[in-house]
């Protein structure tokens, strides 16, 4: 746990340094594409005129000055599969974004979808020493959470306190200075496979970049796609990616659950490829041009040339009706959504006050998906697009860039995580200088 503290704090410091310098890159490592955006932070002077949160939900403090996407290579299920290939793809994206930004970036915040995320709900409770909750008490109550045994080879990616309670008053955002006897905290812990993180770290290091933050893709796409009331009242964001489908449940502006299904748009493509006996590139093209999930009578008559390169006239002049294509795609999409449904049920999504579901990610562009999703997931389904951020090219405003945009917001206004709070005094070594300083601070 201390090791985690160290690395996460180091990353947070790196992020601070990058903000000081004013330029930071964000890297969305997906299974189908790798996106790199270069952000320029204009400094706190931008905030000064607006009180509280600034315009555009406080994200006007930065501007996208470089954007590049490249076809992902060597990434499967949102995890790095072939290191060299992924490294090349990252280099391509970063170099193109740097060229557009005409500046060099050294710090990068990355997100990925896979690595088998698993959510844990933690709670802790302590007696308050002086009937007033202090920062030390918050540190103590967090330390008192009993961490579940999440097994060998798992690493904590997010650990966010989502709720504080003093005595019987729950739902406190900031308990500091409040009177009471007992302080309780609910935390959301997200763990992922350690090897995936290590592979990612290695790739980014090979690209001469410093990692200034890591985030789960489903979390950041939730930040960008869910509107404020959805985040407040409770909603699920389903990020239909290329190799993995992430889902995150938000409540009171905090992520309370996150999971990923290892199925995505690439599986639909491979189904088409197998079903129509075409190469994957053609299948991808057919899917994006003619794909759908709800067949109508019109679709029987719309014939699609699927082509071929064999020299056999009969083979190269094959056509398929759009209904047939939909017949191939629909079962797979249904499978993905049902799998998501299973995860949502497991998370107890039906107990939430609001059951809004937002579909985002590249896969959400399939025509008719919202109708299908409302049959499987529930009535309140909408298609979500990411928030618009300043300077983002038009080509990068689609739902496929939900996690990239979310990562921008994450970089600008990160959520307080466990490691951003103070370390409880008991955790310091007995003869530490810090402990002495703390004693002086508290008593004088």
């Amino acid at each position, binding site marked *: 746990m201390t090791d985690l503290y160290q690395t996460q704090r180091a990353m947070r410091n790196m992020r601070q340094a990058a903000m000081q310098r004013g330029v930071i890159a964000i890297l969305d490592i997906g299974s189908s594409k790798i996106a790199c955006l270069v952000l320029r932070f204009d400094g706190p002077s931008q905030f000064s005129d607006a009180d509280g949160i600034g315009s555009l939900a406080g994200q006007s403090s930065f501007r996208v000055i470089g954007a590049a996407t*490249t076809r992902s290579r060597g990434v499967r299920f949102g995890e790095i599969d072939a290191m060299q290939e992924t490294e*090349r*793809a990252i*280099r*391509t994206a*970063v*170099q193109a974004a*740097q*060229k557009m930004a*005409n*500046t*060099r970036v050294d710090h990068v915040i990355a997100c990925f979808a896979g690595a088998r995320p698993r959510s844990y709900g933690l709670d802790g409770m302590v007696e308050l020493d002086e009937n007033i909750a202090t920062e030390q008490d918050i540190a103590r109550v967090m330390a008192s959470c009993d961490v579940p045994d999440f097994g060998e080879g798992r690493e904590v990616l997010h650990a966010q306190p989502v709720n504080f309670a003093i005595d019987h008053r729950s739902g406190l955002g900031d308990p500091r200075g409040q009177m009471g006897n007992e302080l309780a905290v609910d935390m959301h812990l997200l763990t992922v496979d350690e090897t995936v993180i290590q592979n990612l770290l290695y790739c980014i290091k*090979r*690209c*001469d970049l410093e990692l200034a933050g890591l985030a789960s893709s489903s979390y950041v796409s939730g930040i960008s796609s869910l509107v404020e009331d959805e985040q407040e009242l409770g909603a699920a964001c389903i990020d239909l990616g290329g190799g993995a489908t992430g889902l995150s449940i938000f409540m009171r502006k905090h992520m309370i659950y996150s999971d990923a299904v290892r199925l995505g748009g690439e599986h639909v493509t491979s189904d088409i490829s197998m079903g129509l006996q075409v190469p994957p590139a053609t299948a991808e093209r057919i899917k994006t041009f003619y794909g759908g999930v709800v067949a109508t009578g019109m679709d029987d008559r719309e014939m699609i040339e699927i082509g071929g*390169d*064999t*020299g056999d006239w009969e083979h*190269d002049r094959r056509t398929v009706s759009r209904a047939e294509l939909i017949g191939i795609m629909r079962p797979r999409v249904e499978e993905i959504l049902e799998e998501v449904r299973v995860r949502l049920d497991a998370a107890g999504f039906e107990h939430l006050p609001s059951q809004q579901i937002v579909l985002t990610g590249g896969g959400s562009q399939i025509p008719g998906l919202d109708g299908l999703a409302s049959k499987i997931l529930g009535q309140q389904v909408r298609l979500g697009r990411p928030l618009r951020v300043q300077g983002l090219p038009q080509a990068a405003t689609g739902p496929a860039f939900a996690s990239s945009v979310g990562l921008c917001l994450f970089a600008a206004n990160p959520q307080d995580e466990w490691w951003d709070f103070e370390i409880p005094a008991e955790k310091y070594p007995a003869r530490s200088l810090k402990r002495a300083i703390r004693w002086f601070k508290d008593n004088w």
Partner: protein
Amino acid sequence: MQPLTATKPAAPRRDPAPSRWAYRMNRLWLTPLFRAALRVGLPAFLVIFIAGAYFANPENREKAGLMVADLRNQIETRPEFMVKLMAIDGASEPLAEDIRSAFPVEFPISSFDLDLAQMQRDIEELAAVEDAAVRIKPGGILELQITERIPAIVWRSPEGVKLLDREGYVVADIPARLSRPDLPLISGEGAAEHATEALELLAVSAPIADRIRGLVRMGERRWDVALDRDQRILLPQEGAVAALERVIVLDHAKDMLARDLAVVDIRNASRPTIRLNTTAVEELRRIRDIQTGQNNGQNGAN
């Protein structure tokens, strides 16, 4: 089976990814400091280094110096900048000759080689020149505009006979006073400094001008008017002009200067004094004796 219609790809598809070194170079090139150093620092260093290496050799230094001098000479000797002759205006012939001989300029000469300010100062130092303007007229003419001093008075100084202008500046030496008989004469030490006053006195003394031989500065302090027949008028230090006017009035009224007297002393304005000549004194006594009768005659006989 080979496809019949398909065109063979000429080369394997190029990998869009930059190589690791290309990527690093790209990033290095995007570093602002490095970029500035390479775009400004390196060329500047190269220029300075090459120039330094070239000029480290004294032969090269000399060559470069020669080249510069040659270029300069080429420009200076262009016909537009050449001065072909000197024109002297406002100077009499002997003075012009003097100037020409004192400033032997070999024409044609480049106007860059002429120091006009120095030349003007030098010309103004000449005794006979009151004011000089030196300029180069278009067409390559060096024009000297000279205002000459006009001799107004002859001064017999301890060093010799000199001509003075109205302000007392020495204009020229002359061999003898008779070279300029038309000008009045002054003499004595320190007379030149008071030439203006002398001229005023001479102007006042116009009624007796035919009798004046000159003015003499006495003890570097006051003037004497020397008349013919060895007569002198001793003028005071202050108010010499008024005193002389008074003497002239006396002369006009009593025909005083025509009498046989040696000195009219008017230095003390309240007590003008005259000194008679010896013969005049004897004559005066004889007349007094005649007037006073026998006694006097006896006395005179005694």
